[in-house]
């Protein structure tokens, strides 16, 4: 028998009103210790790795957007402007940690090392998830918002019970925090004390709905308090700050300190997808203000002013990015390899009798079409 009384729980710190920032908008080290909130600028190697991954990620993102405009992808939701969140978060992960991305997080997957063509399988329409989740420890990109957050909780719970120190990073948007599944995942994570870090990329817009129609909370980071989690508000266009705070939260979570919720304040400078028309709901002036807060320019300026980056090094990053984009273009110009048989292969561990019959019928129709030169059999 147990009792309903639990040991007293320390009330988590209320997130700061000002986002944690280590590099200011002009690319200088943040002077105010209150704004740094006890976090230190990552070392030169980490800063350089962040910039390199952001340069590559942005080039990939631009290439994918162009392919969507050409009709070679079914759709592409851009990560542009959010590279600091996605790269900063992912580079804080350890090898055995898991990433739980959404459809807007292609850049995070490229930063994790997933083959960029496999990242685009979903959006090209070849299959749903193109990469091996276990090989990269990246869950499939999630489209029903917030529904993958509880998967991260369950996975890390299972890992802890097996003695592994695996943590997980869940990427969510501001809109997703309104979903009931977000609430359930935050609550399960906190009650079970699982090592999960929820990184909310607050890009201000859920397609056409602004944040003030989404939440009345002082900040999204404040939501952490009600669940008994640590909450952090961070400048989402400062890769150094995102990396430092996520790395800290992951380390705390791994050592039993519980999950954390981080709001990274950023902006979706591109339309929701290539089929969206943002002129119907927001001002160009707002977009322009945020374009000037470019996370890449900010980190590049800091590295240059501190003598940690020169033109040759930067050109090297650009070359790497261009090679990746060229490879994506070239590989995506090849036709997809899937056949109708693939439809039946993985519904169950073994196709059922009914699926075997349907597969035979589809095969027969396809063979007939091939013989007669069209799906209608020349009729």
């Amino acid at each position, binding site marked *: 028998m147990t009792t309903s009384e639990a040991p007293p729980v320390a009330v988590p710190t209320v997130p700061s009103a000002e986002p944690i920032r280590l590099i200011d908008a002009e690319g200088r080290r943040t002077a105010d210790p209150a704004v740094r909130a006890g976090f230190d600028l990552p070392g030169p190697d980490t800063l350089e790795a962040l910039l390199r991954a952001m340069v590559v990620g942005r080039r990939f993102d631009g290439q994918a957007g162009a392919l969507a405009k050409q009709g070679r992808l079914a759709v592409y939701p851009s990560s542009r402007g959010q590279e600091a969140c996605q790269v900063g978060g992912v580079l804080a992960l350890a090898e055995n940690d898991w990433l739980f991305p959404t459809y807007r997080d292609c850049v995070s997957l490229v930063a994790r090392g997933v083959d960029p063509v496999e990242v685009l399988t979903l959006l090209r329409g070849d299959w749903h998830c193109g990469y091996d989740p*276990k090989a990269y420890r990246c869950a499939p990109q999630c489209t029903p918002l917030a*529904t993958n957050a509880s*998967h991260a909780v369950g996975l890390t719970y299972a890992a802890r019970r097996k003695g592994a120190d695996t943590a997980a990073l869940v990427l969510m948007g501001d809109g997703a925090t309104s979903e009931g599944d977000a609430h359930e995942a935050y609550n*399960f994570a906190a009650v079970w004390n699982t090592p999960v870090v929820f990184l909310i990329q607050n890009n201000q817009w859920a397609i056409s709905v602004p944040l003030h129609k989404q939440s009345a909370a002082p900040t999204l980071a404040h939501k952490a308090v009600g669940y008994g989690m640590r909450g952090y508000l961070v400048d989402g266009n400062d890769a150094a700050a995102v990396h430092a705070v996520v790395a800290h939260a992951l380390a705390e979570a791994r050592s039993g300190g519980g999950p954390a919720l981080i709001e990274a304040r950023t902006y979706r400078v591109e339309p929701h997808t290539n089929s969206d028309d943002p002129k119907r709901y927001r001002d160009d002036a707002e977009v322009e203000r945020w374009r000037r807060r470019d996370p890449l320019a900010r980190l590049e300026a800091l590295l240059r002013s501190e003598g940690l980056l020169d033109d040759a090094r930067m050109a090297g990053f650009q070359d790497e990015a261009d090679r990746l984009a060229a490879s994506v273009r070239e590989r995506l110009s090849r036709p997809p390899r899937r056949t109708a048989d693939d439809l039946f292969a*993985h519904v*169950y561990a073994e196709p059922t009798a009914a699926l075997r019959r349907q597969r035979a019928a589809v095969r027969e129709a396809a063979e007939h079409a091939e013989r007669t030169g069209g799906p209608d059999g020349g009729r």
Partner: protein
Amino acid sequence: MARTTLGQALNRALRDALAADPDVVVYGEDVGPLGGVFRVTDGLSAEFGEDRCFDSPLAESGITGTAVGMAMYGRRPVIEMQFDAFAYPAFQQVVSHVAKMRNRTRGRLELPLVIRIPYGGGIGAVEHHGDSSEAYYAHTPGLRVVTPATAADGYSMLREAVESPDPVVFLEPKRRYWAAEDVELPARTEPMDRAVVRREGSDLTIIAYGPTVDTALLAAEAAAGEGRSAEVVDLRSLSPFDDETVAASVRRTGRAVVVHEAPGFAGFGAEVAARVTEQCFHYLEAPVMRVCGLDIPYPPPHLEEFHLPGVDRILSAVDRLQWESSWVPGTAPVGAPEQRSEVNA
């Protein structure tokens, strides 16, 4: 042979599954020290510890979503939805993730998990405690949907569900939890994706599953008294569907009645009737009849007797199977009872 109830058989199946495989975990609402509101998990947390059988927060989507994550890491979660209608918050997890993960990832991630759901009415419970939700799940490719009708099947099918590489929605007919039979456990019955003939007959086939199998057997007994020999097929698995066993029976008897508690409109019986018609058309002496729950929200307990298919309604449908048929297409069958407008008998 010991008298064993369905509830006890399910409990024994979970105990044996926990003992057999250290990756099996059992959790949900009140399944820990309480043993579940129907006591199906009675004693498991005491025997195996709170790491293996435990209470979760009260949130069905969270329970299901965390089970997805655990299965991704190689565990075999067996989760309990406390009642049929309380499982609806988990619907998105079930249809968008549980059912699709293997397919989305081309077999790289499989989710060997079991979702146990007590379902159906007949226990005098108030609203939201008596739904028959099987059609929602059976309509979703990627799920196995099974429902035992006997204690022996309860044990055997639950063990098989836990061992299955596919996710299984395991529907437990809650009004049969206390029905006892002589059975020696552990028992292994027919594979869980096969239908079985519970009673042999030659004049008609009554097709039932879960809570209505016993009703169908009582109806067959009564029909025998009226000189009609009814075969009773227990489907056991709603998805995948055992066409072979069902069609073989109907081809022999030439007449079929499908019985379930769920509303008939767009219910599972419609699928059964369509499949039987497609596969047995030239053997049929009469249209396939459905005896189902009424097309109403589940009624309050004082009125559920009107809703639940009973022996009389099954016999009434049997009477309408055109026994004196010299039927010509486009005409009323000679000697047939007056045509009634409602679909359900």
